[in-house]
């Protein structure tokens, strides 16, 4: 077991990115993720990397596109309003089939919103990252250790599937400190024959080298664009089949199933302890990948439990995926706070009792 160090979530994530081989950080300051940029500003020059503070989130994501097109691992980080600005770039990354690593340490919205923790960018991350048909791999850490492990994993998945991996954290994950192990093992290197690194012709003689690589998302022939979209979704299907991650907690005998990610999963675990002391059999399914969503796990759980409670820091976004995954064969209740407010375990317990009452018998 590697030695553990006490680190803030945002800084641990930044160090994990460096360990994952990222040497290009392009970002723009915004609370509550600015520690990522500050950490990179200090660390990158020490290791021969590039830290660049862009003129906007839009420029930052397009610099990521440039670095990624050139075959190198690149990342940017932001918070909710900044990620809205990046949506154009996220769509282009998908259209160009480029790998990228993007962090959203969410705050309350809409608009300028607030700066306290939120999960209200769930829809944006999992359903509407930008215009057009595409998905991102969305990873939801629930501890500082997972800020590290999912960052390492995120870079690998991005290269493996030529997709954007997004860490969807909430302000709590970014700001809190916990002991973490930074021992993540070896990096897998992927060949990138598509990268724009020059066609390799030499100056003497004046040769051009291999045929040129083109990184492009413009396909004016409808049939061609359709074909590319079908091919991309065939790749997404492989991701859905192989990369779903989740945690099951006290689900063996559960009558009620909480569904929560990030900080609300931690609140939920406290609530489960209280509810079980009061005799209610309740467990938790915690999606770690929000896309691909653990649909089959929830569908199977629906055969065993009487009701679900989606515990979220939003007006109810993930609950729609829970209802879809379970085909609504059990009631799905919403336990939510929003705007930067986090629910207490007692509020979750109250909702568990409500579910227990209306859930009926199996």
């Amino acid at each position: 077991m590697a030695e553990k160090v006490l680190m803030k979530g945002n800084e641990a994530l930044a160090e994990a990115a460096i360990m994952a081989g990222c040497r290009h950080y392009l970002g723009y300051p915004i609370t509550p993720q600015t520690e990522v940029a500050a950490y990179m500003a200090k660390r990158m020059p020490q290791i021969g990397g590039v830290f660049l503070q862009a003129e906007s989130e839009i420029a930052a994501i397009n610099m990521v596109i440039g670095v990624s097109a050139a075959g190198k691992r690149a990342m940017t980080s932001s918070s909710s309003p900044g990620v809205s600005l990046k949506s154009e770039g996220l769509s282009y990354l998908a259209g160009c089939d480029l790998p990228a690593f993007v962090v959203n340490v969410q705050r309350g919205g809409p608009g300028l919103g607030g700066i306290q923790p939120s999960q209200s960018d769930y829809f944006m991350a999992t359903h509407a990252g930008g215009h057009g048909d595409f998905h991102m791999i969305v990873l939801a850490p629930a501890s500082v250790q997972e800020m590290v492990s999912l960052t390492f994993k995120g870079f690998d998945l991005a290269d493996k599937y030529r997709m954007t991996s997004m860490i969807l954290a909430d302000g709590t994950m970014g700001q809190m400190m916990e002991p973490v192990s930074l021992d993540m093992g070896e990096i897998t290197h992927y060949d990138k024959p598509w990268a724009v690194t020059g066609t390799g012709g030499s100056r003497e003689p004046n040769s051009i080298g291999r045929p040129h690589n083109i990184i492009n998302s413009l396909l004016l022939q409808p049939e061609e664009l359709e074909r590319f979209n079908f091919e991309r979704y065939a790749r997404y299907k492989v991701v859905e089949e192989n990369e779903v991650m989740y945690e099951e907690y006290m689900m063996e005998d559960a009558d009620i199933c909480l569904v929560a990610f990030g900080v609300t999963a931690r609140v939920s675990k406290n609530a489960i302890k209280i509810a079980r002391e009061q005799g209610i059999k309740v467990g938790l399914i915690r999606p770690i990948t929000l896309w691909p969503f653990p649909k089959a796990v929830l569908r199977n759980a629906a055969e065993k439990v009487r009701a679900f409670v989606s515990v979220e820091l939003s007006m109810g976004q993930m609950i729609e995926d829970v209802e879809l995954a379970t085909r609504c064969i059990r009631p799905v209740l919403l336990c939510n706070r929003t705007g930067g407010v986090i629910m207490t375990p007692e509020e979750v317990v109250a909702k568990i009792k409500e579910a227990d009452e209306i859930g009926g018998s199996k």
Partner: protein
Amino acid sequence: MVVFEKPKALTDAVLHYCPGCTHGIIHRLVAEALDELKITGETIGIASVGCSVMAYNYFACDMVQAAHGRAPAVATGVKRANPENIVFTYQGDGDLAAIGTAETVHSAARGENITIIFVNNAIYGMTGGQMAPTSLPGQITQTSPYGRNVETVGYPVKICEMLSQVDGASYLERVAVDSVRNINNAKKAILKAFRNQVEGKGFSLIEVLSTCPTNWGLSPEKAQEWLRENMIPYYPLGVYKDKYAEEADK
């Protein structure tokens, strides 16, 4: 003996540009510069959004197609990833001087060691002739059907003049492609802008006054006249900044 042939840095793809459009000339000048400096094999071009969007098919070097206005940011990423590569953007006036103004100014401010070819034809060509940030006062376009009224929509943006105030910029020159003499001058400027990058001299931007016969509603020949009589007086040709020449003079 062959005395005039197609540059090696152009592919055999057929250009899609309208008859009389000067993009073809400017493509050729860029390709000649790559040929003469023998850098095609190490060059990455960034195409933008506008008429020149498909430039990625025409240059034989590796190419990236950027979102509207973002080419300098993408170029920054490519250059910072592999500083040994030569990186250029090819952008029109809507792309560079409207939606991409921030990326243009800040890539200059950072002194990115890149080359920008800025084609200014005072109109949005690809979308069918709308008012550009560089459309002249009084100019009639699809979205200024009564002529550009500076009282309500403001004045054209003069990019070379504006960037000449930015310390990070190294070399700024405005040229035109309306005559043989001006085309030869444009060639020299574009060549120098690429040579600067090879020599690590930082940010170079060449603004090329260009024609759009289709959307100006003029014959190619009349379009050249219109450029000479209307654009050049408003956008004077010449070197707006040459940091290294200025230092050599000191």
